[in-house]
């Protein structure tokens, strides 16, 4: 892509958008060079800050016309580089589209713009006794549009499911600039289900209808301290085996606890080698019954201290350590990699032992924070970038952890997405045929491959003309930089 094309595009955008909504100043552009994953950086060619779906559609149509790639970005908190810009492309930032358009409690739904933060939805309906269930740790800032792109989860998705289970409808701008409505109530293919979690490769969500949930009658949060992670893991298995589905079961190991203490003084029990946070919610009677069970199980599994939150403040205090854990690790290590892998719950002990072995083998520390209920690990691989070679070793450990997950029948990402960071691991988890089949969906939505190219899939692929005969050889294919598909 030539600069001339970008300059021309910037001029055209200027006719469609307010002056302050088109950014071309290089210093300003650079502030958009990465999302929550700073490891990958690219300064976008142009940044636009649209205010409406129509503006997005117009921008996308121009991109389509000029063959310029575009990337959507919400709050830029993603941890897989899903919103990594293209130097030869346009970054469409939805941070100004943050209106809550409609709240319909009778039908338990709200219609919001993509830039609205996850927590803002809950805050808007909390007083009426409702909330928006998916709660990623970054919920106070991550945008709902980003949640849709990544199919975000959160600590409570064990019981309540993911973004995809809570979205009732979308208005999207397709990669050719059409505005299309997708509704969970309509017959036809579940395009809603296909779009959510497609990491911006199938278009941009511009209006989102979310399901609101009734706030549970009772919430009990319990913090159990164990001397080691194995005992905590036992407790988790026993809780599940008892037929209890808690709203959340979270575990942190000693190193993660240390970081959280340093950051937010969460005052977890002294000497804990692992803490388990179990949250139960539902009708009073049910929660009371289950709580007794969980407490018994934790004690039998060796918990040496159990705390129960008696108020919303105390619950917040228990969660504070957990929710701040990622960023808090910055207090105990100059640099770190946040990994996100999933294993079947029953494989947790083996995989954790495997991570221990990796720590020894590479001389790299790993702090473990995980959603124990659904086997979603967030190992934080610590290193000092000032020490030569440590970064590479940390990177290696991080990759080996994903190998462990795949070996045990798990996944390379539970909630952070594939983005640019993990696309190279996709062939380890999926066959060529699997990826080709997914690519069919991509080709249906985005035959020219302009919507967030280079993400999710390992090799840039092109979509053959369908139906009909292919016309000539694409230059990317000729130069060996892409495979014709």
């Amino acid at each position, binding site marked *: 892509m030539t600069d001339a094309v970008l300059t021309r595009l910037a001029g055209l955008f200027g006719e469609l958008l307010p002056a302050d909504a088109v950014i071309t100043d290089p210093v300003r552009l650079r502030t958009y060079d990465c999302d929550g994953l700073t490891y990958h950086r690219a300064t976008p060619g142009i940044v636009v800050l649209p205010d409406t779906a129509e503006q997005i559609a117009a921008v996308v149509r121009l991109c389509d016309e000029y063959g310029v790639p575009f990337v959507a970005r919400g709050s830029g908190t993603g941890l897989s580089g899903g919103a990594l810009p293209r130097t030869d492309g346009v970054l469409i930032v939805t941070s100004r589209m943050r209106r809550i358009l409609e709240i319909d409690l009778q039908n338990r739904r709200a219609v919001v713009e993509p830039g609205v933060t996850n927590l803002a939805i809950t805050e808007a309906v909390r007083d009426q006794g409702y909330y928006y269930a998916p709660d990623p740790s970054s919920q106070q800032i991550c945008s709902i549009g980003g949640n849709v792109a990544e199919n975000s989860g959160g600590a409570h998705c064990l019981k309540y499911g993911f973004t995809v289970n809570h979205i009732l409808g979308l208005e999207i701008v397709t990669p050719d600039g059409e505005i299309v409505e997708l509704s969970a109530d309509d017959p036809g293919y579940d395009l809603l289900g296909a779009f959510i979690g497609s990491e911006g490769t199938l278009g941009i969500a511009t209006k989102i209808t979310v399901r609101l949930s009734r706030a549970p009658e009772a919430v009990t949060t319990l913090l159990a301290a164990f001397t080691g992670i194995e005992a905590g893991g036992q407790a988790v298995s026993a809780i599940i085996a008892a037929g209890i589905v808690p709203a959340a079961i979270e575990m942190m190991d000693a190193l993660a606890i240390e970081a959280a203490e340093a950051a937010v003084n969460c005052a977890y029990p002294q000497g804990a080698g692992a803490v388990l946070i179990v949250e139960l919610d539902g009708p009073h009677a049910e929660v009371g019954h289950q709580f007794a069970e969980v407490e018994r199980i934790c004690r039998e599994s060796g918990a040496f201290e159990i705390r129960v939150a008696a108020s919303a403040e105390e619950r917040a205090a228990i969660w504070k350590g957990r929710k701040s854990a990622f960023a808090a690790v910055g207090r105990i290590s100059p640099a770190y990699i946040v990994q996100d892998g999933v294993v079947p719950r029953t494989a947790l002990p083996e995989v954790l032992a495997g991570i221990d072995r990796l720590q020894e083998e590479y001389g790299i520390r790993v702090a473990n924070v995980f959603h124990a209920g659904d086997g979603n690990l967030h190992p934080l691989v610590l290193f000092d970038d000032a020490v030569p070679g440590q970064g590479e070793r940390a990177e290696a450990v991080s990759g080996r952890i994903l190998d462990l997950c795949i070996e045990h029948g798990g996944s390379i990402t539970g909630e952070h997405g594939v983005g640019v960071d993990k696309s190279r691991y996709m062939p380890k988890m999926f066959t060529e*045929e699997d990826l080709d*089949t997914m690519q069919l969906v991509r080709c249906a939505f985005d035959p020219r491959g302009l919507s967030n190219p280079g993400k999710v899939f390992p090799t840039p692929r092109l979509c053959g003309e369908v139906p009909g005969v292919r016309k000539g050889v694409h230059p990317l294919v000729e130069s060996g930089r892409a495979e014709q598909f």
Partner: protein
Amino acid sequence: MNDDAGAEEVLTAALTDTGVAIRPAGPDDSVAGVRPRWVALPEATEEIAALMRVTSAHDLAVVTTGAGTKLHWGHPPERCDVLIDTCCLNEILEHEAGDLVVRVQAGVPLDALARALAAKGQELAIDVPLEGGTVGGLLATGIAGPRRFRYGTARDLIIGITVVLADGTIAKAGGKVVKNVAGYDLGKLFTGSYGTLGVIADATFRLHPLPTARAWVTATFDRPVTETQGTREDEKGVAFDTASVDVADEIRVIVPAVAESQAEPSAIEVDWPDVNGPCVIAVLVEGAAAAERARAVQDMMGEKAQVADEPPEWWGRLPGLPGLPGPADRAGDEGVLLEFRNVASRLPGTFVGPFSTAATTGTRPAVRGSLASGVLHVALPPGTEPAAAAAFVGALRAECEDAGRVVVLTAPEEVARRVDRWGHVGGLTLMRRVKDRFDPERRMSPGRFVGGI
């Protein structure tokens, strides 16, 4: 004629060469009135792939069936050469109870699956409102029952899938962990796709522990709708009679109160066998302290409400279908079955819609389904005049306007010809593009789905 017979033999040989059991199709094998030429009975995913390579090479159209309980749903296929019967793909591949996950082949009967899971104290929390179906059929139609209010539907519980595409490509997506965002979610895309994208070979679901206790609270409402006669004057002072129809006040109050209550019901269902008669509303409460919570619901539902630990006999069954459907082609010998979605709080519409529409079209619909999630089934009895049935569909759509959707699940051909089966479909252009990519030669259940897909 000889050439045709010769060609038939070549094709039969090609199909047989795959090693898959092939038999010629009989009249009982018809798909919505269209008789296939062969029935194939693959025993493994690779066998489906082998079949698909042959059908691809010879431009043969393919329809897949499990127990055949819903094979007559949707449009008749434009053509159907090979019927793939998944009866021999009936293995539960993996059930690690500690992971609350099961991986099953498409042909596994749902009741066999339920038994196997129950042995470990678990369940797949979908109440399919038809007996005798398979996992594959459940996924192809996306049908769900009462507890969709709490657990969602198949698309919410599927976490992994293996499919075979029209060209024989075997592809999987998702996996066997509940939390997983790697790659596109083909499982959801194939769920409810009526066999038009490929053949589902196996699927992986998240499970739930069987509830420790269940209780149903039921109450009968003699007059679910009220008609108010009155007179009004227009601006010229001319008086005229008016009749306004509305849902009975007690239902209007009770249903939202129960749905939003802290008793957390898993389902709120209505059975209204004759829209001119009474209806029964039943609420399911599951889990610890179910009895206690059921009493709370009972208090909300009034004096006549009763608590039971067994469901009412109509619970979780489609309306208007006497007896068990068999695997035979049933088009033409039964009535019209509609799926009627109405945004939940438009409760009045849910009752008034079928009532008024019945009155204006002279039909006798039976209504049953989920009041809490606003998804109901409406059956018109066999023998309903085709024109009246078609009028009923149109009028019901008009009645619920934007807030509702009416899909014709089954209809005799006479009715089907006169109605738009699917009604409003958002994103149809994108759906066609998806179909074009997955099945560019239109050989997978062609014409059966929305927009003639």
